[in-house]
């Protein structure tokens, strides 16, 4: 194929200016140049880039300290060992990432592996047709993973897997120990988030109806996975709104609000609280009965080069890598503690279960929460906005 170079175009342009070439030929070369540019851009971008690029895979995660841990302890060693580059992307929340996946061309095709936050997200991706079928024989380290974390995935994808479990965590309650005593926090439990003494000093995650309803359910003595009195839930959230200083939008904002003492109590991700504690901030962590627990997965999207993806997943589940990442991001790994020796730091993390069975942990029921998502998100948005 003839290549259109800048020099050729310059020669053609000179010839055109000197009257030695017809307008038709000049336009042909311009058209060829335009077509070349068009091929590099969308919608053929993916195909051309794939053809030109060396072996690489894209990984999208939560950013901040979490992504830093993945980069240092998993991606860099993986690239060093295999020569395959991991393109490291970030997202602020699962919904914005899903929007990008949905908008990609072909849908999901620009993305490869995502660090999904819970089983309900796994279900959403499967429902939208973004799942793949992993060859588990190529991921031998999957044998080290807690069966209790694999089982919910198999139920959704009818026996196969489109993701591997990687870590687990909790959304508990963070409170400023200078202003709230441990005794008071433990006595009030979830109701600490409704303590009128904290009016104007309360925070919550504005972007997630689930977390807010979950704690409203605990506050009103209901099961979060089977709320029978929704009026009480909405009333509790309205009441809480009056105490609220800020509905935060990201992990970074959560940490900033707590560190700067803008808020004294909020729902919070256990890993972020651990990071604040390690920095020396006076922040306590409370996980009342029924605390919202979640498992995180590395989800492989449809259209991904499965050989490369499986290599990376197996590498990341290698105990040395998984433990280093867990310590870096402050969330316990999915490794079964009865099979793999874990470090003391991991054993002290919130949500760590030495039995590996996760009995007594309360996770969001995917079918229950996903089936009400649209209705409850809108209701939550209205309450948050003052309705």
């Amino acid at each position: 194929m003839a290549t259109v170079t800048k020099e050729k175009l310059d020669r053609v342009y000179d010839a055109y200016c000197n009257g030695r070439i017809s307008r038709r030929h000049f336009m042909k070369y311009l058209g060829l140049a335009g077509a070349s540019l068009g091929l590099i851009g969308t919608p053929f971008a993916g195909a051309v880039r794939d053809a030109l690029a060396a072996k690489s895979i894209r990984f999208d995660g939560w950013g901040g300290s979490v992504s830093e841990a993945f980069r240092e302890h998993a991606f860099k060693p993986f690239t060093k060992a295999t020569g395959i580059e991991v393109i490291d992307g970030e997202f602020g929340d699962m919904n914005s990432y899903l929007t990008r996946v949905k908008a990609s061309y072909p849908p999901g095709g620009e993305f490869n592996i995502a660090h999904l936050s819970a089983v309900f997200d796994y279900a959403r991706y499967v429902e939208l047709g973004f799942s793949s079928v992993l060859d588990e024989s190529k991921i031998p380290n999957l044998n080290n993973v807690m069966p209790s974390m694999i089982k919910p995935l198999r139920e959704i994808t009818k026996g196969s897997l489109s993701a591997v479990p990687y870590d687990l965590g909790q959304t508990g309650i963070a409170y400023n120990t200078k202003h709230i005593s441990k005794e008071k926090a433990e006595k009030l439990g979830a109701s600490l988030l409704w303590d009128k003494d904290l009016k104007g000093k309360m925070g919550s995650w504005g972007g997630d109806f689930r977390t807010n309803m979950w704690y409203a359910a605990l506050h009103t003595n209901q099961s979060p996975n089977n709320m029978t009195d929704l009026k009480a839930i909405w009333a509790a959230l309205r009441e809480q709104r009056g105490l609220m200083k800020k509905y935060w939008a990201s992990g970074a904002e959560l940490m900033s609000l707590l560190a700067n003492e803008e808020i004294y109590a909020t729902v919070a991700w256990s890993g972020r609280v651990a990071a604040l504690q390690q920095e020396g901030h006076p922040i306590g962590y409370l996980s009342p009965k029924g605390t919202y627990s979640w498992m995180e997965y590395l989800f492989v999207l449809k259209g991904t080069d499965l050989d490369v993806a499986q290599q990376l997943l197996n590498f990341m589940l290698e105990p040395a890598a998984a433990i280093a990442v867990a310590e870096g991001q402050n969330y316990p790994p999915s490794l079964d503690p009865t099979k793999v020796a874990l470090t003391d730091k991991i054993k002290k993390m919130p949500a760590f279960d030495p039995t590996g069975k996760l009995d007594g942990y309360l996770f969001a029921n995917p079918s229950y929460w996903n089936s009400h998502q649209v209705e409850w998100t809108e209701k939550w948005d209205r309450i948050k906005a003052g309705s």
Partner: protein
Amino acid sequence: MKSEKWKPWALLAPSLSAVVLLLVIPVCFVIVYSFWLRAPSGADIPAFQLGNYAKFFEDFFYPGILIRTIRIAFETVILCVVMGYIPAYFFYRSESRYKQIFLLLIMLPFWVSFIIRTMSWINIMGDSGLINHVLIKIGLIETPFSMLYNEFTVLMGLLMYLLPFMVLNIYVSLEGIDKSLLEAARCMGCTEWQAFREVTLPLSLPGVSAGCLLVFVLTAGTYLPPMILGGPGNDMIANLIFKRVIGTLDWPFGSAISVILLSLLFVIVWTYNRYLGINQIFKSFQGN
């Protein structure tokens, strides 16, 4: 000559292509989406129905946010005019050799990311921010004074973002005024204030109105200041669109809200054109 007719079109082709590809086609997509349906999973279902528009108007919640947006946009415009005219006039009348540096200072905020500029207010006005720190240090207050996360801070964020647009519009308009007109007014007995009121102010109005339109349209479509500096109940319409599109994957409803906002802005621009003339915007850049 007939053979010459293609030339203007050829010259316009790049910008026309950009407008069509980057504006007209995406807006058409948004309009088409606004008639679609959303599946519970977040998938879009092609359809032609007006349910998304009906949903917007079925109670006061969504129109209420739209009205709040318009109100905040008007407030921002008024604040920008009041606070923008004075520095613009100062630059116009200034004979200082540092005039160009002053003008550069107006542009300086654009060198820093808008998000960083907005977030910096948290370090200034926060409970442990600069203002509270100083007030506590000098003994004026004992506990931090809560200033953030309300409509005032949203307005402040908008002002910080949009004031340079207003100042520059007014300044360019003022620079176009022939200074001999002012001298003539003074020679005919006008006081400084009368000369300003009768000559400068009327002749600078095209710049003021261009700045007003620009500030209004930009405010109506912004979402970062309410998101970062706003508290519960300070959301504007762009935040609502963001939540519908990103938060709930409800692209059809998000598109319907976008079309409603676009239509409203279109009506405002049309009204502006009807009574003030859109060409005033260009006049402000050409001088009077």
